[in-house]
């Protein structure tokens, strides 16, 4: 049996009285692309942030490459973080820096690479996501939403990470741009051979990028399986979600 790339065991997280994650169990195998689906506010981003150490789980354990990382800090945490690339929901580009400085940030600040070499890598990664040299000196605020996502993607893959996380990569984009981003994700992931965890509520995106899908509901993974089984899951919650029906077992909490 291979060691899972990432494993969550019984991860719980609450904010004050509000329980967001109520015992998450999840395994992501090397080279696999797992997509977690679920409604807005169900704790998808919180799950990712717990793995990255941005948030600390209240209970449970998280393993990366078999090493427990739940409570590590400082240098040990930085070492683990070097395995990761992350594309944030709103791209989260640094608006005080230019496009290429954003892409090269992890290389320069995180790894101490020289600016010239980092810039060459940034240009190369930007080309991979379809951005030419005319944008490299622009500020992120001068770019459209789709272009910002591309820059965020280039930043996520800049250091050739083992593992890439995508937080709602297509949210807020028009359907065509969303599909372009999906293709880019599939291509770039194949290119660097990374393991990926994506979260989304966009089923078209999930079908396109997933090997396996897991559904998060009320703080738990209520179903998971290969993407081919999603239409025959036999799970009424999954059925309601993938068909986007208002009627069904899922009760939307109107106040989040």
């Amino acid at each position, binding site marked *: 049996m291979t060691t899972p790339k990432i494993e969550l065991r019984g991860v719980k997280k609450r904010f004050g009285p509000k329980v967001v994650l109520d015992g998450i169990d999840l395994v992501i195998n090397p080279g696999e692309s797992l997509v977690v689906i679920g409604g807005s506010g169900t704790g998808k981003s919180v799950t990712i942030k717990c793995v*990255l150490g*941005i948030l600390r789980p209240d209970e449970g354990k998280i393993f990366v490459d078999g090493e427990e990382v739940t409570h590590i800090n400082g240098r040990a945490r930085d070492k683990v973080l070097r395995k990761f*690339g*992350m594309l944030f929901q709103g791209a*989260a*580009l*640094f*608006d005080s820096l230019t496009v290429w400085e954003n892409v090269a940030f992890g290389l320069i*600040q995180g790894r101490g690479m020289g600016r010239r070499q980092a810039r060459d890598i940034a240009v190369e990664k930007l080309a991979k996501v379809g951005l030419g040299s005319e944008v490299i000196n622009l500020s992120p605020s001068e770019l459209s939403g789709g272009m910002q996502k591309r820059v965020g993607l280039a*930043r996520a893959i800049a250091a050739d990470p083992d593992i890439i996380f995508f937080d709602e990569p297509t949210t807020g984009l028009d359907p065509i741009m969303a599909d372009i981003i999906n293709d880019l994700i599939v291509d770039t992931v194949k290119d660097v051979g990374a393991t990926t965890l994506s979260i989304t509520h966009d089923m078209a995106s999930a079908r396109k990028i997933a090997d396996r899908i897991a559904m998060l509901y009320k703080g738990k993974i209520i179903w998971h399986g290969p993407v081919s089984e999603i239409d025959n899951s036999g799970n009424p919650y999954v059925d309601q979600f993938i068909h986007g029906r208002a009627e069904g077992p899922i009760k939307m909490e109107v106040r989040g």
Partner: protein
Amino acid sequence: MNIFAPVGRAFFTLLAQIGRLTMFLVEVVSSCFRPPIYWYHIGQQMMRIGYFSLPVVGLTAFFTGGALALQIYLGGNRYGAEAIVPQIVVLGITRELGPVIAGLMVAGRVAAAIAAEIGTMRVTEQIDALTTLATNPIKYLVVPRLIAAVVTMPILVAIGDSIGVMGGYIVSTQSLGFSSGIYLKNTLDFMKNEDVISGLYKAAAFGFIIALMGCYNGFNSKGGAQGVGAATTNAVVTASILILAANYFLTSILFAK
């Protein structure tokens, strides 16, 4: 209606806030002494916090010195003590008004700007992005601002002191009939190093408060634009209150003899 419940809750909220601020403070101060130190950012922040505050600090100091001279002249007149204007102006400016007014002005300008910038970075997940790129946001964002504020505030106040004394001098010589030579001689004879230096200590403390409250409120902002707006307001209000409170305690410590 139990009136103790809300009072108790407010009290515990306050305690929790103080606890969080203390934890933030400990993390920030310990980060000041561990590499990496971002020298380039310290320089950049010194420009933004110090240099660009010069016009505001200079103008307010000038008018404060002028008004102070007028008031002392008018008040002193009642006892035939109007000749004391230069001495009181230099004492009042260097010990109290120079640092306090500069502190409050810079609090309005810089604490707000820091809270808005860091708050925006928080709500747009830029701070989380820093973490995932193996860069400690406290070291990258907070430490440079803190060091820059602590270093530049005394310089700003020293300049403000000079301009404030000059404001008093101009008003006194131009409209109160003082002779220029006597005014300057009285000022220089009366001014003691301790007075100036005590004011510069205060300035460094105020710089620390300003950067800390800007960063702390920015770091803890939540929600969208509204959360950032609230953080900005809180930063200015808390920094101003803490400056005035710290000024009282510093005065009582520095001049306890």
